[in-house]
């Protein structure tokens, strides 16, 4: 699980702990997702669904369409928790695109979520600061990492139990997805490593005190007045 997916899962599990949600289902789109899904089951997610396809790319639209169809097939659901961005392509758009595709509300950069009375609440980053919001479900919450949503550790008996739990596998054909290229929105023309352009200049001196003196002088010159 990526860092943001771990946080999203913890937010879901806390909602379940409080009795606010009944079941937590984890859905992954990847051919190599089995182990990741087992880890989610080991921390007490109830169900795991694997869409057996590799759509790994900067272009989120095919993934979003596949996720929407998988949700429709496995649901109904009231709430989707998605990570802020993938650890590789850093696209940062899947959750919001999914909300729009489903016609649901979305809340960005969520840290915590709970239910107050009948209303779903969340704290999230807004330009004005950390904002608490009330949310009309169904909704997609795009989760960012926070001290409050560090994923719990699995207990050993739960790890063993998770290894025996069934996974639901769906193929693209099961979801009625034919032409993936038709879903594509982006063409990646080139990916290149960032070339190192800076050369580090080392501050030297006969004694540590000399180094510190030179450093302090340089830092003062660099700091905007």
């Amino acid at each position, binding site marked *: 699980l990526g860092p943001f997916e771990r946080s999203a899962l913890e937010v879901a599990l806390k909602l379940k702990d409080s009795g606010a949600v009944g079941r937590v289902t984890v859905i992954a789109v990847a051919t190599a997702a089995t182990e990741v899904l087992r880890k989610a089951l080991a921390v007490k997610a109830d169900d795991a669904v694997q869409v057996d396809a590799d759509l790994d790319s900067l272009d989120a639209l095919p993934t979003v369409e596949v996720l929407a169809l998988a949700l429709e097939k496995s649901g109904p659901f009231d709430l989707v928790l998605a990570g802020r961005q993938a650890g590789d392509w850093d696209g940062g*758009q899947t959750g919001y695109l999914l909300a729009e595709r489903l016609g649901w509300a979305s809340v960005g950069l969520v840290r915590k979520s709970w239910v107050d009375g009948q209303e779903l609440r969340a704290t999230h980053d807004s330009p004005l600061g950390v904002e608490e919001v009330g949310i009309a479900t169904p909704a997609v919450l795009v989760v960012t990492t926070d001290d409050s949503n560090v994923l719990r550790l699995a207990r050993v008996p739960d790890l063993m139990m998770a290894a025996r739990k069934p996974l639901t596998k769906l193929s693209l054909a099961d979801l009625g997805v034919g032409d993936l290229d038709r879903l594509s929105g*982006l063409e990646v023309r080139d990916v290149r490593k960032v070339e190192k352009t800076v050369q580090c200049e080392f501050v030297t001196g006969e004694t540590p005190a000399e180094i510190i003196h030179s450093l302090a002088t340089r830092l003062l010159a660099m700091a905007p007045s």
Partner: protein
Amino acid sequence: VSVVVAGWQGSGWNESGLARTTLELFAIAQAAGGSITFVGLGGGATAVAPEAGRYGATEALALETGLEAGADAYVAVLEQVCRDRSPATVVLPADPPGREVAARLAMRLGGVVINDVTAVAGGDPLVWTRPVFGGKALADVVGRRSPVVVTARPRAFAPAPAAGDASLAVAALEPPAVAVRVTSKQVSRPETQGVRLEDAKVIVSGGRGLGGQELFDRLSELAGLLGGVVGASLAAVDEGWATSERQVGLTGKVVSPDLYIAIGISGASQHLAGLAAVKNLVALNSDPKAPIFQVANLGAVVDSREAVPGLIDELRRLRGQ
């Protein structure tokens, strides 16, 4: 061909007019080519919108109130603006609402979103560059649908120079007819002492190499002497020396200060992903082989237990305090 540039209350402008980030969006719009429409959303929009004329806009639209539905409202207003003008490109800031609005708007219009762009090459089609893999690589991408909605990484583009006339007529937009699905209950400012990490010009960041809470806490003195604020690596947050509000990195804040001083930070890619456009990166580390020296432009191999108190004393002396 037309381009829509949008800004909103909170990041798009301040007391002195359109914010630097908005001028950067105009630079992108000029590079994209075509007639530019500026859309200002939220309190103060009508007053700043005429200024858009100085940066190449030929149309200015504003909506001050009726935006209680938040991102849903922004998307609805921009959807209408775009349906009437069919822009090839929509340029939005990469701040928290920006990513949400960009993705939803693109999906609603049948277009495509590209986040965090750092460069654009003109022509047909436009080729957009953005960092990927935590900033270790750059990808060139082309939209296969229209419009292409981009969010721009702050400080990646030079602000558009002022050229035209600042007295563009402003047309008022209609408030959108959307249900409020997300209601604001309260806003609390984070614990920062004034300046947010994202806006800081100087950041002094500490990592595991500091060895303990006591030395980490002294970073605020050092930062104060340089007019900066304190940041932290994930390791320092994991140690409990700083809250995650202070964390710079892939899972924390993405910062772009003029001066970033990394003390006792090895320079893992997770941390470097949070350094977007740092002008001067200074690294202090006891390990001469630490990867942070690969990206720093000034470095010193020092023991932070000596360097932190030493620098505080020396800076005090140099500043005559």
